[in-house]
């Protein structure tokens, strides 16, 4: 039996219906057609499904859709500005609402990711992290990244991309 779920996604009120056992990740993908939220391990380890719930990162595979009733969720699509195209974020835009960085390749180019599966979760985790920690050390970035698996890069370039994004964002302020 499905029950109604009403929530705010990326600033827009959305409604759908879900069985109690449906995860928030599957609901976002299958019912709201927001397929930027990736489903990897389905037990909270890989971090690919990370979304922001009331601004804080959570695993969408470990939340039931019905638990999001009345809550505010941001997915990777919400970070993609109209001007920058998917995937966008502060990282890609280089801080602020407009692109402050002369490097439009952003995190995509900088991370040298090959398949991109992990990236939405990393970008959203980094979004909240850089909001709270505008001047992170490499050690802090590595600790933040420990919650997201990437099987392509070995992480080094992702750490560099986040450090660079932090610098660009600080300059933009």
């Amino acid at each position, binding site marked *: 039996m499905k029950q109604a779920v009403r929530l705010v996604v990326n600033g827009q009120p959305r409604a759908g219906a879900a069985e109690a*056992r449906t995860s928030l990740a599957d609901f976002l993908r299958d019912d709201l057609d927001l397929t930027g939220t990736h489903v990897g391990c389905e037990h909270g380890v890989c971090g690919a499904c990370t979304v922001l719930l009331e601004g804080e990162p959570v695993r969408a595979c470990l939340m*039931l859709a019905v638990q999001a009733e009345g809550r505010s969720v941001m997915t990777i699509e919400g970070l993609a500005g109209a001007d920058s195209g998917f995937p966008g974020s502060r990282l890609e835009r280089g801080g602020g609402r407009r692109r402050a960085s002369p490097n439009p390749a952003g995190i995509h180019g900088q991370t040298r990711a090959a398949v991109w599966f992990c990236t939405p979760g990393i970008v959203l*985790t980094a979004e909240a992290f850089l909001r709270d920690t505008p001047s992170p050390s490499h050690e802090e970035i590595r600790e933040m990244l420990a*919650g997201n698996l990437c099987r392509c890069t070995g992480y080094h370039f992702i750490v560099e991309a986040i450090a660079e994004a932090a610098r660009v964002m600080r300059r933009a302020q």
Partner: protein
Amino acid sequence: MKPAPFEYHAARSAAEAVEVLARHGDAAKVLAGGQSLVPMLNFRLARPGVLVDINGAADLDYLREADGVLAVGALVRQRKLERWAADRAPLIAEALRLVGHVAIRNRGTAVGNLAHGDPASELPALLLCLDGAVVARRVGGERLIAAAELYLAPLTTSLAADEILAEARFTLPPAGAGWGFAEVARRHGDFALAGCAALLWLDGQGRIAGARLGFFGVGSTPVRGSAGEGLLLGLEPTPARLREAAQAARGGAVPRRGSARDGRLSPAGRGVLAERTLIAALERCGSRP
């Protein structure tokens, strides 16, 4: 995978939650943060007929400190407790920093972690180390369960099927107490192979007035290092005594089969962890003359 179907109850209060539990008993599971239960549902390792969701039970969302005891309601997220403890109880903050990752702690509750009873988890050992207890509530009453009486086996507590773990109580260390916390894990946030929490405080003469050791990942339940604690009381803290106490405490832990080669820490390794945490605790003792 996806969970098997279940009947879902969103409880709006602790009283409503225990009422549903009383009706369904063994068939029901309590859903708090879901960071341990939902993976088990997704893999169908757990197939409860009924889920009682307490995320809407606002009366369980509180942190209270009184008379040196910190009371943590069942809905307090680990991240909230971590932030609260950062200035006031650094041992608790440090232990929480190693529980999963930020995205896990934003959702996972401290009490849910305690109720799950994973012997490799940090918080049950911390509850033991801090002379803690939990409040188990059922329809018509509640009882206090000391940390030492809570854990029976891996993922098995002395909680009855119709009880919810409504609150955890941590005895905060006395002013000036030093603390140490160490674990061995393959990656930050991974389940620890083993770990140890230590507290140490001194009297006016610089002798040890209190010592606490709690181990995780060393057996089927968290283990208190009582044998080592007793060796230190009333004595001046010397490196040799801390080592002796660490060795004795590690002996109190039930050895697990296997060795470091299959991903477990040897007894010698546990002794080293205990010694390091005791040394760290001594270095942080505020009242050291």
